[in-house]
Every structure is written in C-alpha cells, then in structure tokens.
C-alpha cells in the first residue's frame, strides 16, 4: 500500500498524550495490586510473591467487621435507592410536563452537585440534633445517608432506559386488556430490568466506596472498610491495606464491567 494520504483527524502528539494517560491511569493501580502480593512489609521493594497479607487481613477482626458492615450497608442502601429511583424515574419520564418537574429533577440530582463535604457536615449536624432529641445512636443514620446519595446514581440508567423505551408496547398491552398493574409487571418491568440492574450496581459501588459522608455520619465503632482504611493510612502502612484495596477494586471493577455490558445491550 502506498502512502496513506492526508489524515484529517491527525493532531500531532495527541495519540502520545492519550496513551500516556492510559498508562498513568493504570500504573498506580497495578503497582498497588502487585505489592499486595509482596512477601515483605515494603510497598516499594519487591521481595517475592505471597498471600500473606490477604491472610492477615482475613484474620484481622476489625477488617472483617468493617467489611461485613460495608457489604450490609451497600446491599441495603442500593436496594432502597434503586426501588425509590425506579418509582421516581417512572414519575419523571413519559408524561406531560407538570409543575415542579424541574425542581424534582434538581432535587434528585442534588447529591451529585453539592460537594460531599458539605452534605457530610449537614448530616453530621442534623443527625446530632436528632440524636440529642431521641437518644438513638444506632446504624440507621448510615443506612439513610447512603440510600440518599445512591439515589441519583441508580436513577440515571433507569431513566435512560425508560426514555429509550417504545411507548407503543405498553399501549399495545393495554389495548389487549392488560390492567395498568399487569401491564407494568408483564411489559414495562421486564424491559426495564437491565436499567434497574445497572442502576443497582452503580448504587452498590458508590455506597461501598464512600468515605467522606460515612466518616462524618458514623458513630464510634461503626467503621466501614473505607473509613477503617482512612484511619490506617495515618499509621505506617503495610501491604495489608493493599490487599484490602485489591479486593475492593476487584468488586468495583466487576460491577462496572457488568454495568458496561448491560448498558451496551440495546432494547
């Protein structure tokens, strides 16, 4: 083949910068994962492969409790957030505009727009107020807080799915004597399912990864895995933190890849 000719899309150096970006994005993560398998206590000098830090994390009672709390929190919060988001998405798509719709939209997306630290401080103050009135200091505060900031993440893919859905399918079902509830169960819900699953996964990952709001809302002894790690980072770090991180990374990456595959599938 002769000369490729004039490439209108070419810009000098762009490909180099882009590839450098990909390398730089992944290098720290790869190193972090690599040193979680280090036999020594160093996170810079490679001394050989071992599972030792995974074993040590597994045997660390604090880690185990925090991990279970994180999982429990993420499961409940993503379930609550996704359920609320499905209903909200049904109420904000495919109907004529109504008064207050813009405000509703802003409220649902508000956790995305307000800096996390501000929400965290607001929750700290508000929950402290409730605590002082009721004397209740249990874990419910964390569940409510996580459910709230997960809602917009669950809402986005569900809404996108609903908007892309063919309205005539439901009309056809209604025409064939389906009552509204049965139409929803038999037609809308099955079509919506990939969106719901995607939304739930995003919510799960967001809850699992949250540091700031949890740090401010949690009472003593209510550490999640991320807040436990944040505490550990102040001390001298051993590859045990790398091992915990690697497990969390694996969960997140799996979820995101599944989300990606789900959102790729068209109606």
């Amino acid at each position, binding site marked *: 083949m002769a000369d490729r000719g004039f490439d209108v899309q070419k810009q000098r150096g762009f490909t180099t910068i882009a590839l450098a970006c990909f390398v730089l994005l992944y290098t720290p993560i790869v190193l972090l994962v690599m040193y979680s398998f280090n036999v020594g206590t160093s996170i810079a000098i490679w001394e050989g492969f071992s599972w030792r830090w995974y074993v040590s994390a597994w045997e660390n009672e604090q880690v185990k409790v925090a991990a279970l709390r994180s999982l429990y929190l993420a499961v409940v919060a993503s379930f609550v957030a996704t359920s609320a988001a499905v209903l909200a998405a049904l109420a904000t798509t495919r109907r004529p505009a109504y008064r207050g719709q813009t405000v509703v939209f802003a409220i649902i997306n508000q956790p995305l727009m307000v800096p996390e630290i501000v929400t965290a*401080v607001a929750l700290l103050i508000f929950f402290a107020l409730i605590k002082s009135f009721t004397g209740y200091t249990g874990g419910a505060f964390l569940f409510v807080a996580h459910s709230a900031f997960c809602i917009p993440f669950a809402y986005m893919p569900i809404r996108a799915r609903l908007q892309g859905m063919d309205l005539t399918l439901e009309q056809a079902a209604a025409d064939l004597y389906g009552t509204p509830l049965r139409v929803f169960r038999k037609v809308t819900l099955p079509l919506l399912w990939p969106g719901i699953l995607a939304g739930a996964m995003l919510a799960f990952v967001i809850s699992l990864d949250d540091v700031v709001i949890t740090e401010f809302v949690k009472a003593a002894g209510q550490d999640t895995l991320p807040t436990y790690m944040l505490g550990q980072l102040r001390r001298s770090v051993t590859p045990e933190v790398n091992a915990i991180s690697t497990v969390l990374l694996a969960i997140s990456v799996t979820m995101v890849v599944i989300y990606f595959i789900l959102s790729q599938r068209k109606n």
Partner: protein
Amino acid sequence: MADATYTRPFSERYSHWILLSPALLILFVAAFGPLFIVLIYSFLTAGDYGGVVWSFSTDAWFNVFAERDMFDDTLGFADAHLAIFWRSFRLAAVTTVVALIFGFPTAYFIATRPPKQRNLWMLLIMVPFWTNLLIRTFAIMELIRNEGVVNSLLMAMGVINEPIQMLYTDFAIMIGMLYVYLPLMVLPIYASLERFDFALVEAAYDLYANRLRVLWRVILPVTKPGIIAGSILVMIPALGAYVTPRVLGGGKRMMLGNLIELQFGQGRNWPLGAALAIVLLIIVTASMIYYVRAAGKEGAGHG
C-alpha cells in the same frame, strides 16, 4: 368540547407525586433538607465543647473572612483562612488546567477510534473512576512517598541521591486530584467530540488552515461546551476535595474541605464550619450556574 372540560381522575393527576414520594422523602431527610439546618447553624453561637448554643450570632460569618488580633484586638483579614481559600482555588484551577491538557487529547484519541472500539476505550477511562477514591489516592501516595516506587527508581538509576519530598506537598495534592478527577474531564469532552462533524475539519483544511489552526479555530471552539462541562466537573469536586488533601497533604496542607472538617473536630467551632460549608456551596453553585449559562449560549448557536 367534552374534551376541554374532562378532568382526569385523581390517581392519574397526582400519581407522579405518589411515585416520587419515597425518593423525595429520603433525599429531604438525608440530602437537601439538612442543608437548611447548616444555614441556621452558621448564625448560632459556638458551644465550648463543640455543638452550638442556641443564640443568634454573626460571629461565624465574621470569622470566615476576618479575625480579631489576640493581643491588641484590632481587626484583620483571617489570613489563615484566606490562605486556605487561595490554596483551594489555586490547586483546583491548576488541576483543571492540567486535566484539560491531558484530557482533551485523550478524548480526541478515543473519539477518532473506529466506532466499535470507542466504548471499550471509554470503559478503560471509566473503570478507575468507579473504583474507590480512597484507594486511588492511596495508590498515588505509595507511588510518590519517600520510600515509594518513583523515588526508589530514581535513586536506583542514580538520578538522585536523596529521595525527593513529594508527599505532603501541594504538588502531591495536585497530582492526586488530577489522577482522581481526570475521567470527569474526558467524559464530556468525548461526548462533544463524538458528535463533532469532521467535515468541518475538512472544510477548514480545504480553506487553507494548517493543523494547528484547525485545532484552534475549529475543533476547540466547536467543542467548547464539552470543554467547559469537563472543566466544571473537575473544578467542583477539586474545590471541595477532602480525602485527597487529607491523605496526600498530610493534614498540614489543608484545603477548604479540611478546614471545614477541622471546625467540627479539634476546632470545635460548628457555626464557623457551617458558614465555611455554605461558602463552599455558594462557590460551587455559582460556577455551575455560570457553566449552564455558558453551555446554553453555545448550544443555542449549534441548532
């Protein structure tokens, strides 16, 4: 005629409010509702051991910007606060600019791949973004600490004899935020580049523009809404960053987020913390409104 006076049944007219109620209730209790309480707290008096005393005071707002000298009681600017404001703004701005310098070519690269490959490249950008922010910050910390890979490598190669102190500097915070927020820059720029009509580039080349001028005069102006969106998306969390400066700044290099936290911890000045939080919220909201306006104006011209 009958249609005009027909009123839909109650359930149909108000069903959306019923459907919305769970989400709105949760968000009211644990997202936007408490923001009003923050506003109220910023006008209260600080309690001695944290918390507040329920009496009106503008001290907190006064203390955001000014301070009374401990010895001669003269008024002055709250230098420490202003320094932190300035650092927050400067670091956020530098992070945004560097993210743009790296993010635009990356988005451009992805947008010019064959259509089938593009989503996969975007997935590569988004995977780090959806992984734990703390873990990514920690990964950067391991990389740049004195005993970290970068210093070890440089020393092994003989470039340096002593490790360079990178951790616990402004540079470390900037690098950390760049690493953490870069995908937020790539995403909207990619979205506008993917819609970009490369026939415009052909037209510009046809009209004697060279590569650089095509970039400056056609590609950048047309994708400006995406660039503004990306810049705002990076700028906002960077201004409010808390974890990254805490881990990589080591508590000494504070940003606004850490200053706010301090008031609820050792500082024991909740009203001041509340006022600072409101200041941050105002800055962020103002830049967002600016963005929506700017993007709207641009978008209108595109039809």
